[in-house]
Each structure stands twice: as C-alpha cells, then as structure tokens.
C-alpha cells in the first residue's frame, strides 16, 4: 500500500483550477457538555465563526448542509438558518451514522462540483447529554409472550443472546479478528492507542478531556467489552463544527491573504459496505474503509507516506488500530508494530489523532466528521498552536459509521 511521493501532487495544490474545491473558513466549539445550550446554539456558534474565519457572510452562501444524526429529522438546517440568516438557499438535512458530518461536507462539495454553488456552508452538530453508546436497548412488554417477529423471527431482543450489538463490543470483535489474523496485536497494543490519544489531547484546548493516563490506568479501568476498557472508549458529549467551502473559480478572485489560508480538498470520498460473507452477521468496518482509502489516494494523487497527519475514527481503541492497516499507514498486518514503534505518536512518522481523537477530544456524532476536517485544516494553515504538527502540508480525515458509511477527505496546504 505504501506509495512513493508523487511529484505532481504537491505542485498542483499551488495552482487554483476552476473546478477545484477549497476550505475557506472553519471553526469548532470545544467538545464538552452544554446543558444550558441547544443544538441550534452550538451549530450557530460554529457556523458564524466559520463564516467570519472565511471573511464571508451567510448572504454569500449558495447552499447549506446540516449534519446531525439525532436532529436531521427535525429540520435542524432550517432551524439554524433562523438564527444565522434565512436567505432561502437550498438546505440539506443530513444523517449518515457516524459519517454524518463528513457527509454534510461532501454534500456541499458536490453542490460546488455540480456547478450549482460557488460557496457553501457545512455544519455538523450533536447534543448527546448522557445518552451513551454503551448500552443496548431492551425490549419491554406488558405481558411477556414469546412470538416470532422481525426478519430473524426472534421471540425477544437478541442483543446479548446472539452476541453483542453494543458498540464497544462490535468494535472489540473487529479488533480481535485482526489479532486473530496477525501477530503482535493484543490488549497492550490496543491500550497504547488510548494512551497516545489521551496524551495528545493534553495539548488541545478544544478537547472534551485533557488528561494523560498511564498504561496501567488504561488497562485497569473498568472493562466495557474486552479488550476495550472505559479509557479506550470515546465519551459522549456535545459540540459543533463548521466549514465554508468555495470553488476554485471564486477563490481565485479573493485577496491573497484569504487565498493563503485556503486549504484544498484533494479528495472527497464516500463509500458504503460492499457484500462480504462475514458482514452479514457483524458490521464490516474494514472493506469500505479500504475502498475509500484507495479511491482517495488515487483521486488526490498522494499516498499514505505523503501524509503529515491523519485524523481517523477512533471511536474505540480497537478501531484505530485496524484503521492503520485499512488506510495503508502501516505495512499489511503490521498495525501492532506500528503503534509499538511510536509511528502514530505526534513525534512519529505518521501522527494520528493529534487532536486527542474521539477517545479524548470527544465524539458528538454529527460534529465529528466536520471537526476532523477542521483539525487537519488548522494544521495545514499552521494555526494549531501547541499541538501544531510542524510544516504539515497534506492530511487525511476519516470517519466511519456502522451500517455502514465511510468518508475520507484528503486536504492539502495552499501554496498560493
């Protein structure tokens, strides 16, 4: 999977082609709990700040995509407009599992690519309170009667009787399947992923948690679904992130100081899970990520070795480890060595989740896919403060939602 540096890729980022698409402005709220705000407050805050960051206003926008897994059905996009400006533009309310925010970005990207918009706003938001990804739903009836129903003809809820449907367990099994296939992967390697992300988060003022933990603290924290302990699982929280996208044609006409901060979207890819035998009984988070990565690298003309930083979907520590392999960051089968070697630490060869990742930065579902784009953009602009990866030129943002949906955006620093 390792490819050599492509000589044309980096120089092409310097020229602005009319049909290219760029990030003009971006912002995220700190991920946290906001009991005194609602989703519209959070989304409006991120949207207004992203517009200001791009030196544009809502009146310049031709399209709005609002991603929120739990609010897409409530017209959240139109509700946001009522707080930031009702301009009559098309609104897309987007829900696509944990890829919701990235799908909102891609919706705006496609509108620009289609020639229907020059500028657009993508915002992702979620307010999760104390809901949690940890528990499954029980079935309750007045009178208990075992009658077959649904596509499995089940007489009661099957979660817990036919394996687990809980997220920590589903992703634990995905990690353990990798451990079954390749050497050098076990509890310690998974724990080291969490160690790294907690450590990284201490430098990120936007992270929900900013506390370093020892390997021992991580490995002895309460087990959710072995090997995932509590400190290896993302928390629930609230937050929003937004990005303003612009066509190359429009960007060209903007002042030099605006162009210099623009970041090119070199690839925007969305995949779903293709048929595989094993995915009929448990979600396959690998194949669609591999397919998305292949297409993203091909489209952007860059390879994994070109990446200066990666924000990937570490909903659980077991997930991050297998995505090293799925994204081609390590040699096939070598994800265990990759983390043990220190490669994905911020001072390693391929820094992964320098934001703290979902594990420590947090995971307000609809916001996550936009926040990853915010993070990579901020590094490529050289504006990431204490956590800045020096001289970052190319980055990748990856999210995956069960069901399944995977989105990858490859971003490149402007050389204009």
């Amino acid at each position, binding site marked *: 999977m390792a490819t050599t540096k492509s000589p044309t890729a980096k120089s092409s980022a310097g020229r602005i082609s009319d049909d290219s698409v760029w990030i003009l402005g971006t912002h995220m709220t700190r991920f946290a709990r906001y009991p005194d705000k609602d989703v519209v407050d959070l989304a409006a805050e991120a949207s207004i700040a992203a517009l200001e960051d791009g030196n544009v206003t809502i009146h310049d926008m031709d399209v709005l995509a609002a991603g929120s897994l739990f609010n897409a059905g409530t017209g959240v996009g139109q509700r946001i407009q009522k707080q930031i400006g009702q301009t009559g533009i098309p609104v897309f309310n987007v829900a696509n599992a944990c890829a919701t925010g990235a799908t909102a970005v891609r919706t705006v990207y496609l509108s620009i690519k289609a020639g229907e918009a020059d500028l657009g706003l993508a915002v992702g938001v979620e307010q999760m309170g104390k809901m949690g990804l*940890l*528990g*499954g*739903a*029980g079935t309750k009836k007045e*009178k*208990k*009667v*075992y009658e*077959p129903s649904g*596509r*499995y*003809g*089940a*007489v*009661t*809820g*099957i*979660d*817990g*009787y*036919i*394996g*687990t*449907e*809980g997220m*920590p*367990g589903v992703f*634990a*099994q*995905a990690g*353990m*399947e990798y*451990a*079954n296939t390749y050497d050098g992967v076990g*509890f310690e390697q998974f724990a080291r992923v969490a160690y790294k992300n907690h450590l990284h988060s201490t430098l990120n003022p936007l992270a929900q948690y900013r506390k370093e933990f020892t390997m021992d603290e991580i490995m002895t924290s*309460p*087990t*959710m*679904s*072995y*090997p*995932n302990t509590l400190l290896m699982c993302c928390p629930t929280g609230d937050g929003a992130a937004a990005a303003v996208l612009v066509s190359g044609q429009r960007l060209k006409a903007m002042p030099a100081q605006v162009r210099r901060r623009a970041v090119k979207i070199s690839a925007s890819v969305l995949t779903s899970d293709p*048929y595989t*035998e*094993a995915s*009929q*009984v*448990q979600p396959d988070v690998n194949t669609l990520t591999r397919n998305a990565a292949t297409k993203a690298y091909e489209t952007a003309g860059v390879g994994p070795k070109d990446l200066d930083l990666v924000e990937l979907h570490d909903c659980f520590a077991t997930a991050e480890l297998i995505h090293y392999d799925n994204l081609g960051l390590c040699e096939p089968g070598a994800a265990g060595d990759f983390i043990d070697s220190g490669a994905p630490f911020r001072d390693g060869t391929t820094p992964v989740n320098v934001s703290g990742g979902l594990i420590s930065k947090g995971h307000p579902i609809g916001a996550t896919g936009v926040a990853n784009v915010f993070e990579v953009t901020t590094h490529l602009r050289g504006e990431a403060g204490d956590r800045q990866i020096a001289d970052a030129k190319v980055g990748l943002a990856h999210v995956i939602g069960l069901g399944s949906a995977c989105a990858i955006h490859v971003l490149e620093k402007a050389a204009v």
Partner: protein
Amino acid sequence: MEADTPTQVPLVSYLRLGSEAHLVANECTNCGARFFDRRNACAQCGLREFKNVRVDNAAKLKAFTIVHRAAPGIPAPYVSAIVETTDGTTVRSNVVNCEPDPEVVQLGMELKLTTYSIGSDDDGTEAIAFGYQPA
C-alpha cells in the same frame, strides 16, 4: 390443563430444535451466499431465489469480546463471538459453558453448537437460544 413438558420455541427462526439442534440458513441458489434473516433479494448477486440449508455445528472462534456492560436484563459478563463453522459460514453468537476470561477464551479454539433455555413467557412457553461451547 397441565402439560408434561412446556412448549418450547427457538429464540430465532433459524435455530431448529429437535434431536440435534442446528442452524438453517437461506442460501442463494445462484451465488451460494448465506443469510440468517429474511431477504428480499441476495445482497451479493441480487437474485431472489433461496433454499434452506443446514449449517454445520462444529466451528472455530474467529473473534470475541467479553461484554461487561450488557443490555438491560442480560447477565454479564458474557462472551460475545464471531465463529466460522466447518462449512465456512460466519455466525454471530455467544460462547457458553466457558469462563468469561481472556486467559480462557482463545482465538481459534474449537467449538460446537449447543442450546440453552433463556426463560419462559407468561404462558409457560420456553425460549431456547443457541450458543457455542468448547468442543
């Protein structure tokens, strides 16, 4: 009216009870893809003809997790697993009759299908689940 033995129902319709309990899959007659749930068309090839096939009871452990935070009403910890039967079918299940301990549960271990009761409803009908136990 009393019955000598309570009525039993399988937890899911693809579990067949009887002298030797086993699973039955809907197999696409065109491409051979197997499904445990009702399908409108085959997810692999799109054709719409299926036949019932018996799935082997012997299996190997491909992946597992030990669930400590379980769904409401589910005893924990328990071992959730992905197994592959000797005929190459992937099945999601629990590993039962085995200590829920990562030192005991071993990737690649040989398993066989077994059944157990998960309780009775208010009419006295007993639900029978399947699991895999060390062979």
